[in-house]
């Protein structure tokens, strides 16, 4: 089986900033690849390349075995790669169902928006995920952060994405909401999607992840199968390996 | 010495060294002042005088243009004085610098006082007055004077003149020249709400066309008179839709000062003997419209 996504020594510079260099990873169907790393490590840059927002300058990027360079997010979507950004997920002033269908609007035979169908499908897709909204006509801006995130995920799953990319979906969420989002990630994985998950929280990454790609200052620090690493080692690696020990020591020192 | 200006018109190179700056208060795109510009430039070409034309509706900016001309040490300045107070210092400075100044169009009362050599043209108010008189003679009883640029002093003077010439009831109506639909609609609304109005005085040919259309729309008995000509007004005069057009012959207000400055320079001649040289107003109506029609097309009437 070819991987859904495969990158090989991929690299990207913004002007004189080398944001990413020589990063290789794979995303398989039915598996979760977690991308972990410090602030500014290049995680968002990596997934923006996968999502077609930016283009890579170096290395090769294959989708289902085919060498590719997306020129727009639209193209990535057409290849079945859907991305949920933390901040860029939705248009706040637009209603839930219009957001849900944005970019893939259902139309009637005459080319008009089929709002009845749109609303019904949205309501169904959301309640399938356990989100019960009073009114899919309400603006997304009035939903809570967790609910917005869920709308965006439900959308990606619904539109038959083969690869689902999530950039820090749990950062602003409460414990319960984060749990719900992780549940959907797992659900999507079990439906056979390939998932790329970015997070800072090893406790969120470890339960659902199959593979862990660690980035540091734009370079791959390592890539582990779940079997190769346990949560403590993962946490240690995420914090930059040995450096953390000093910090941990300090922190322990200050505990009340 | 020969102060040859590399940037000026070719004609100035042929003539030698007379360079004249024409500075008016017309706003860019004003139909009346466009004819003045054509007049001045034609004279320049024919007499071999370098003519530059600049204009600004803001009196302060106009004064700055005069200062500019003085610093260029031009051979003569032609200036329209809609707002004599504002231009006083600048004109006096020009005169002090030994530059002959000729005022045109408005400001005849102050022309000599400021030291100008002569005045060509006629006060806007007198042109308005004549138009008012002519409308009265045509048997009109209530007149609408359409001001197409709020706050433009020349237009307001024309309406004030029309009021005194007409004697009877004259009402001003403000419209916006940049929006022809609004011009037509407002005139129409005015005619609908005040059926006594039987004469409309437009101050611009485009407004005259709009007014004629408004009169039709309002089924009013009013007739239009206008300032200035264009091809459409000419044909409207022929068809009787427009009663007459006031023709200030402003082409001469541009042309004559260049001649006068040229003669002054070459021959120390002056014209007018301290009195304004009048250029109008003439009237274009059915009787003489055929004669001027052709010139209107070239932007000279």
């Amino acid at each position, binding site marked *: 089986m070819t991987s859904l996504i495969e990158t090989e020594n991929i690299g990207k510079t913004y002007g004189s900033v080398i944001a990413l260099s020589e990063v290789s990873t794979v995303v398989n169907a039915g598996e979760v690849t977690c991308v972990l790393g410090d602030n500014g490590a290049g995680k968002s840059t990596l997934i923006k390349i996968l999502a077609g*927002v930016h283009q890579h300058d170096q290395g090769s990027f294959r989708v289902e075995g085919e060498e590719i360079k997306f020129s727009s*997010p*639209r193209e990535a*979507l057409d290849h079945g790669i859907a*991305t949920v*950004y933390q901040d860029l*997920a*939705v*248009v*706040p*002033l*637009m209603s839930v169902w*219009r957001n849900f269908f*944005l970019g893939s*609007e259902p139309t009637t035979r005459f080319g*008009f*928006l089929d*709002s009845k169908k749109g609303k019904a499908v949205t309501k169904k897709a959301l309640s399938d995920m356990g989100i*019960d*909204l*009073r009114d899919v006509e309400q603006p997304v801006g*009035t*939903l809570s952060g967790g609910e917005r995130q*869920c709308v965006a995920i439900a959308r990606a799953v619904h539109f038959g994405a083969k690869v689902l990319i999530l950039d820090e979906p749990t950062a602003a969420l409460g414990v319960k*909401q984060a749990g*719900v989002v992780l549940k959907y990630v797992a659900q999507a994985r079990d439906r056979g999607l390939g998932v790329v998950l970015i997070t800072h929280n090893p406790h969120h990454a470890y339960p659902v992840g199959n593979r862990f790609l660690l980035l540091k200052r734009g370079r791959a620090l390592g890539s582990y199968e779940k079997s190769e690493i346990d949560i403590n080692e993962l946490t240690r690696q995420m914090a930059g390996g040995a450096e953390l020990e000093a910090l941990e020591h300090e922190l322990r020192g200050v505990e009340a | 010495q020969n102060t040859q200006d590399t940037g000026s018109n070719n004609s100035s190179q042929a003539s030698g060294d007379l360079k004249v700056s024409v500075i008016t208060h017309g*706003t*860019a*795109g004003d*139909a009346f002042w*466009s004819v003045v510009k*054509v007049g001045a430039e034609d004279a320049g070409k024919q007499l071999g005088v370098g003519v530059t034309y600049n204009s600004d509706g803001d009196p302060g900016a106009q004064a700055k243009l005069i200062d500019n001309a003085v610093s260029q040490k031009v051979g003569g300045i032609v200036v329209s004085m809609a707002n004599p107070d504002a231009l006083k210092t600048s004109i006096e400075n020009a005169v002090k610098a030994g530059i002959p100044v000729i005022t045109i169009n408005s400001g005849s009362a102050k022309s000599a006082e400021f030291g100008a050599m002569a005045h060509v043209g006629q006060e806007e108010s007198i042109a308005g007055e004549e138009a008012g008189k002519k409308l009265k003679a045509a048997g009109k009883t209530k007149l609408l004077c359409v001001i197409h640029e*709020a706050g433009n002093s020349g237009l307001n003077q024309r309406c004030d003149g029309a009021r005194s010439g007409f004697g009877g009831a004259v009402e001003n*109506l403000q419209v*916006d*020249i*940049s*929006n*022809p*639909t*609004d011009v*037509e*609609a*407002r005139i*129409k*609304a*005015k005619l*609908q*709400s*005040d059926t006594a109005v039987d004469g409309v005085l437009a101050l611009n040919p*485009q407004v005259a*066309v*709009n007014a004629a259309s408004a009169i039709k729309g309002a089924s009013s008995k009013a007739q239009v008179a206008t300032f200035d000509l*264009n*091809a*459409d007004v000419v044909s409207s005069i022929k068809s009787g839709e427009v009663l007459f057009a006031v023709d200030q012959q402003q082409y001469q207000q541009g042309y004559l000062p260049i001649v006068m400055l040229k003669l002054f320079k070459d021959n120390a001649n002056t014209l007018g003997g301290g009195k304004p040289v009048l250029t109008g107003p003439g009237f274009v109506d059915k009787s003489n419209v055929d004669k001027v029609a052709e010139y209107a*097309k*070239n*932007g*000279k009437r």
Partner: protein
Amino acid sequence: MTVTATAPPAADERLGKPRAMDQLIKRPEIGAMLGALLVFLFFSVVTEQFLSVGGAATWLDDASMLGIMAVAVAMLMIGGEFDLSAGVMTASTALVTALLATQLGLNVWLALLVSLAFALGVGALNGWLVMRTGLPSFIVTLGSFLALQGLNLGVTRLVTGSVQVSGMREAAGYESAGFLFASTFQIGGTSFYVSIIWWVLFTVVASTVLMRTRFGNWIFAIGGAAQSSRAVGVPVVRSKILLFMTTAFAAWLVGSINILRYASVQANQGIGLEFQYIIAAVIGGCLLTGGFGSAVGAAIGALIFGMARQGIVYAGWNSDWFQLFLGVMLLAAVLVNNMLRRRAERVRR
């Protein structure tokens, strides 16, 4: 509104008691509708001719030309951009048509076609510049506003020696083109300009596009959050350029109506009108920041404008004060709209 369905949502204890009337005020154009009603009633009462058929024909005509542009500008504003060159564009298109027809002797239909191509070109250029450079459209279209203004004057004077182009009536095809753009039709013995039909048509089409089509959905999306829209696959650049071209198209339509109706055009026409379009759109409920508004609202905004402008004349008020009235009306309208929107937002939450 909890993530897991626990209790029926009606019993959300965090909400105070809801108010019944609040449900009515969610549409962007509700403020404008109220305002239009008010202006209409006011002038119907204080003046005699305003309510007559002839009166209606007058203020509808005024509103129609403003309205066509206001609707287009509203779409652009919903899409998150401005067009300050919209006003002079109406003159530029008319000038192109007139110059081609009178100076080159082109058939009016052909001249109209060329001028349409010109308009769409300028619109596309505006859009392309905005998208390419990432500069605010306020600045870019201010630049094209000035450039067009200069071109209008410079070219007209260069070609005709005067500041206006006239003599369209003699051009071939004037009659048939005039029928489409500038004829009148009779209702109750009064002539109404066909521009009113164009206005209604344009509003209906624009409103349908906005509310009922994919492109309409995209317009709201790119105005509300361009980055997010791009991320879910909306062609942001293409859509925005199309919106600038729509505005240019509307300007061409208005310019064509003008030149065919009056047969002459001034080089300095249209200057300052861009603000009136924006004002009408804002009165109609458009947000200056994009992502919110309606075509019908903008049309109603234009109607208010037309009624007020002509109503003042009917009432015989001194027209010197018109701008003051306009300024006060604008401030009042946006304040009321703002209040209504805040209220609506609170209701929605």
